[in-house]
């Protein structure tokens, strides 16, 4: 039922290699997705009809369709237009889109939570819109958004498991492959589960901690 010590020693390098790919996809998707989320949030708030419509479309599709379908749309769908991507880049694009769509809502809500007087004060000081965003709204808004963004990051880390379907050799793919060659599916998949838990559970505890701290800040 459980992996033996020899098996763990034999599988670990392979599984850790997969975990490293999962983490790379997570990091890149967040590094691209969160700034994209900010752009989408500003786009949804924009006065221009076109920008607003385009941003809303990207947000609604990115949130409405399952991440798995986005992934397959980009990996299996785009080649019909002549644009073929490797599984790594397809994974990053799909998950960054997903991240952007979800975080844009988080960021928009947090920007709108900044007290109205702050905006007026920035205007009275003659700051232009970009400086207002950079010096006044973002520093205060992102503090509110931080716990939700961290929580979402854990979901994206788990979401990298979907890349199994586009043959990216991440953690689940590696565990599945070990299972199919040794026929020891349960122990191999269990080992992958332990690795996911080893990252997700401490991360979730960290998010809880940050949330409580942010709550204290809000109460003052």
């Amino acid at each position: 039922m459980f992996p033996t010590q020899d098996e763990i020693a034999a599988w670990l390098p392979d599984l850790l290699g997969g975990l490293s790919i999962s983490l790379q996809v997570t990091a890149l998707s967040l590094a691209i997705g969160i700034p994209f989320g900010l752009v989408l949030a500003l786009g949804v708030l924009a006065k221009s009809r076109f920008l607003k419509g385009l941003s809303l479309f990207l947000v609604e599709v990115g949130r409405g369709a399952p991440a798995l379908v986005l992934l397959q749309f980009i990996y299996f769908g785009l080649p019909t237009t002549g644009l073929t991507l490797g599984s790594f880049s397809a994974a990053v694009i799909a998950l960054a889109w997903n991240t952007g769509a979800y975080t844009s809502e988080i960021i928009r809500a947090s920007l709108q939570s900044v007290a109205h007087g702050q905006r007026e004060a920035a205007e009275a000081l003659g700051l232009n819109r970009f400086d207002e965003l950079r010096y006044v709204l973002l520093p205060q808004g992102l503090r509110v958004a931080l716990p939700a963004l961290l929580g979402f990051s854990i979901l994206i880390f788990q979401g990298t498991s979907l890349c199994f379907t586009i043959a990216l050799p991440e953690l689940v793919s590696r565990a599945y492959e070990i299972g199919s060659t040794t026929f020891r599916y349960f122990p191999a998949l269990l080992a992958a589960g332990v690795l996911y838990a080893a990252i997700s559970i401490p991360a979730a505890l960290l998010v809880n901690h940050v949330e409580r701290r942010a709550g204290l800040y809000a109460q003052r």
Partner: protein
Amino acid sequence: MNAADFVPLLRGLVWTVALTGGAFLIGAVLGVPLLAARQSRLWPVRFLAMTVIQIVRAIPPILWLFIIFFGLGMSVMPINPFNAALMGLGLIAAANMAEIYRGAVASIHHGQWEASAALDLGRWSTFRDIVAPQAFRVALPSAASYLIGLMKETAVASTIGVAELAYQGNQLSQLTFRGLEVFALVGLFYVLLSLPIAWLSRVADGYLRAKVAR
């Protein structure tokens, strides 16, 4: 694409709805004892429930389905893909529903517990007659948005061969070589499916509010 291509997608739609409904039902029911254990006065029970919830939520859905379908299916007893998906997603839903219930119960004013204690209602009766009806209303919007999330999560069942929407889309794109349209259509189906859930939740919420607002 022609009209005949829609048929498999519609068939997939039925499986997606069945899987979503089944998993949600399992989660909504199993979430109650899990919540009870989570709030137990005995710390080992509380700790065990908390650990179970954390572990279930720490492992990605696709891996749960693999553990059940390939892991248990190959070593303990063969299991069909739909049942494996139902078990895996039901398990995940139970952990998440327990957390939703917990948030809702926590939102009930402590005066309600105190008043029940003053009336000597007992723990079970307090929960059933006083807390649960109020908490239900609080939990409804979160449960509805979770249901929409769960519906999208059922797409992972395609990886173990459940012939739901994502699976049919995949097959169809391989048959027609028109991945772009097929996956766009599949995405649209998911969006369309989430609309009635959101609508129903709003209607139910309005109805329940109206009942209390007298």
